C-alpha cells in the first residue's frame, strides 16, 4: 500500500514537472533571469505546489500521524547552519549554470540524450564526493598515522 501510494505520488509529481515546463532548462533559466526577459510563469508552479501541499503538511504537523494512522516525525524546521546555506548555495550555482534541478534531471534521462546522462552522472558523482568528504574525518580518527 505504501509503495502503491508512492507510485501515485510520483506520477502526480512527475506529470506536474512535465506539464509546468520545469523540465525545460531554457524555461527555468528564463525564470531565473529576473534582470532580462523575465518569464515569471514558473512562480505560479511553485506557488501552486506550495498551496496544495501546505494543508497536507498542516494536518501531519498537527496530528503527528498520517491519515492512515502511522506516526510521523517531520524534519527539523529551525536548524540553520553553514551546511544548509553553503550546500544550498553550491546547488544554486549548478542550477543557475544548467537550469536543471534533480527532478527535471531525472525526467530528462527518459529522452536518452548524452547531455542528460552526463548531468545525472555528475549528480551521482556529487553524492559520492560528499559521502567521501564526510567519511574522511572519521577515518582519520579511527586510524591515527603511524609514528
Amino acid at each position, binding site marked *: 500500500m505504501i509503495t502503491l501510494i508512492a507510485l501515485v505520488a510520483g506520477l502526480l509529481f512527475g506529470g506536474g514537472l512535465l506539464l509546468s515546463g520545469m523540465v525545460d532548462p531554457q524555461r527555468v533559466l528564463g525564470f531565473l533571469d529576473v534582470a532580462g526577459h523575465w518569464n515569471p510563469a514558473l512562480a505560479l508552479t511553485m506557488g*501552486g505546489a506550495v498551496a496544495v501541499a501546505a494543508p497536507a503538511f498542516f494536518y501531519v504537523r498537527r496530528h503527528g500521524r498520517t491519515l492512515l494512522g502511522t506516526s510521523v516525525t517531520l524534519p527539523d524546521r529551525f536548524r540553520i547552519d553553514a551546511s544548509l546555506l553553503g550546500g544550498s548555495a553550491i546547488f544554486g550555482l549548478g542550477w543557475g549554470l544548467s537550469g536543471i534541478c534533480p527532478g527535471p534531471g531525472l525526467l530528462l534521462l527518459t529522452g536518452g540524450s*548524452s547531455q542528460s546522462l552526463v548531468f545525472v552522472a555528475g549528480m551521482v558523482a556529487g553524492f559520492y564526493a560528499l559521502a567521501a568528504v564526510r567519511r574522511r574525518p572519521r577515518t582519520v580518527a579511527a586510524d591515527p598515522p603511524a609514528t
Partner: protein
Amino acid sequence: MTPELLHSLLGGLLIGGGAAVLIVLDGQIAGISGIFSKVIRGEVGQTGWRIAFLIGLVAPAALLGLPGLQFSLGLPGLALAGLLVGFGTGLGSGCTSGHGVCGIANLSPRSLLATLSFMGVAIVVVFLVRHGGLL
C-alpha cells in the same frame, strides 16, 4: 491567462498534489535529491517506496515524451553543473522539491532560507552569464 501560464499553474498543482499524497498517506517528504541519492547509494531500508516514487516520477515523461528542449551548456559544463547539484543538495539536505515545495509548505524557516540561498545564487549566476559576460 495564456496557455503557458495555465500549464505552469496546473503543473504546480499536480506537483503539490504529489507532495501532499506522499506526506499525508505515507508520511514521507517528496524530496527528489534525497530519495534519489538514498536509492543510488544503497541506503538500507525503505527502498521500496522510494523506487516506486522514482518510477512514477519519470513515467509521464517516458510515456508522453519530452517537449523539444535545448541545453544551455556543453557536456563538460553539464557534468560540472550536475556535480555541483549533487554535492550541494546533499550538503544542504534538499533541493527545489524538498526545501522549495515541501519545506515551505511545512512553514519551515530552515527550508525558506535554503530556498532563498539556492534561488539567490542561481539568479546571480544567470545574471552574470547572460548580462555580465561570464562563460
